């Protein structure tokens, strides 16, 4: 039973990656968005002028703003495309809702992880930052990425069934993501500058856990009439 559930979830995840590799709908949008934002910001701010500490403060916020907007631009597709290309019915009829949610969550999280893997080293290099705690930075990126993935997956499933999905997504997502962004920025800042990050990471984990659990509980209701 549970092994077939896993197989279902991975099948959803696998088909999204395979489609992506062939058509490149999302990755291109996400990476281009991230690169453009980083380059504009580094040209505007530059490594000259500000002290390393100030730069770390600014870049921690900048990095999460970038990830947030890239997510808003590229990730609702996870469900919007299923509805628009009319494949959602086939998926509804064939797979268990929880497996669909797990597969989609994995897909969105892996996209975000890839984006973070590109954007973070680039930001560190472009702004000539020193990372006080690489492990802390990794934890901040993982914690923030998971929360961002879970929240966008749930909301994408909601807006895909309404009109004007993309604008609606922005309206729904930003308030939901503010606590996450604030926590993730705080965790990233303390990883870059060094300092006590434990309580913030714990709250980040609490947020992630709440959204993931709420997502699994609510998804069957969102997905099926």
């Amino acid at each position, binding site marked *: 039973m549970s092994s077939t559930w896993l197989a279902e979830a991975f099948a959803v995840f696998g088909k999204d990656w395979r489609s992506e590799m062939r058509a490149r709908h999302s990755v291109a949008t996400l990476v281009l968005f991230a690169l453009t934002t980083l380059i504009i910001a580094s040209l505007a701010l530059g490594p000259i002028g500000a002290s390393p500490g100030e730069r770390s403060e600014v870049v921690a916020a900048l990095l999460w703003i970038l990830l947030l907007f890239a997510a808003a631009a590229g990730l609702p597709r996870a469900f919007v495309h299923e509805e628009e290309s009319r494949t959602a019915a086939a998926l509804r009829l064939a797979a268990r809702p929880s497996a669909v949610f797990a597969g989609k969550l994995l897909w969105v999280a892996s996209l975000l992880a890839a984006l973070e893997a590109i954007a973070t080293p680039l930001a560190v290099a472009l702004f000539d930052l020193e990372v006080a705690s690489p492990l802390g930075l990794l934890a901040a990126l993982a914690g923030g990425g998971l929360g961002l993935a879970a929240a966008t997956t*749930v909301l994408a499933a*909601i*807006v895909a*069934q*309404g*009109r*004007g999905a993309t604008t*609606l997504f922005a*309206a*729904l997502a*930003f*308030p*939901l993501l*503010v*606590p996450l962004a*604030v*926590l993730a920025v*705080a965790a990233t800042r303390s990883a870059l500058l060094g300092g006590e990050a434990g309580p*913030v990471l714990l*709250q980040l984990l609490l*947020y992630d856990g*709440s*959204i993931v659990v*709420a997502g699994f509980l*609510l998804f069957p*209701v*969102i997905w099926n*009439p």
Partner: protein
Amino acid sequence: MRKPLLLLLWLWMCGIIVAAYHWAPLAEGFKGDSSRILFFHVPVAWVSFVAFMAAGVSSLRFLAGRREARHDRSAAVAVELGLLFALLATLTGAIWARIEWGAWWNWDPRQTSIVVAMLFYAAYLALRSAIADQESRGRLSAAYATLGLVVAPFFYFILPRLAFTLHPEPVVNASGEVDVDPRMLAVLLASSAGFTVLYFWIHRLRARLAGIELRRDEGTE
């Protein structure tokens, strides 16, 4: 609500206004009588939280039960009222901030987080208007409001404590101790109770009205 109960609520609220100005002492370290706004500002902020939680509970009842339209309506009305009370909390807070801090708006974490909470629930109303089909609207907006049950505590309790704040310590502060003059506390609690009852009364009226409007619209079809 029955007439005697309504009269009681009215007398109760009048009593609170009198007590707030003539019985409760002034808090130390505040300009003039400005601390008295506390007796109205804190309860309306509290009621906005109660309303948003009530919306979540109605939504859960809608989803878990037989998807009765009255629970859906009840949630929507609760969100509308929650927004109204959150707006009142923001306005009373701004008046106080103008007097104490010298500016109507200071991007204080507590000010910011109630704005974020309002945005979250304004998005609920946007979501409702974006879905034409009645069944999907009820289902999806209920799921979103249930999500609010999970994140609203972040807006009200975690987010405001993250950054440095000028805002006075919450009545029940981080260490869980109550450090307020007993008479102030009494008025504050009585006022919170009064506003909570007031909220549920308005909610009942609005929900009934929404039901009547719906039946009227269907009748004239």
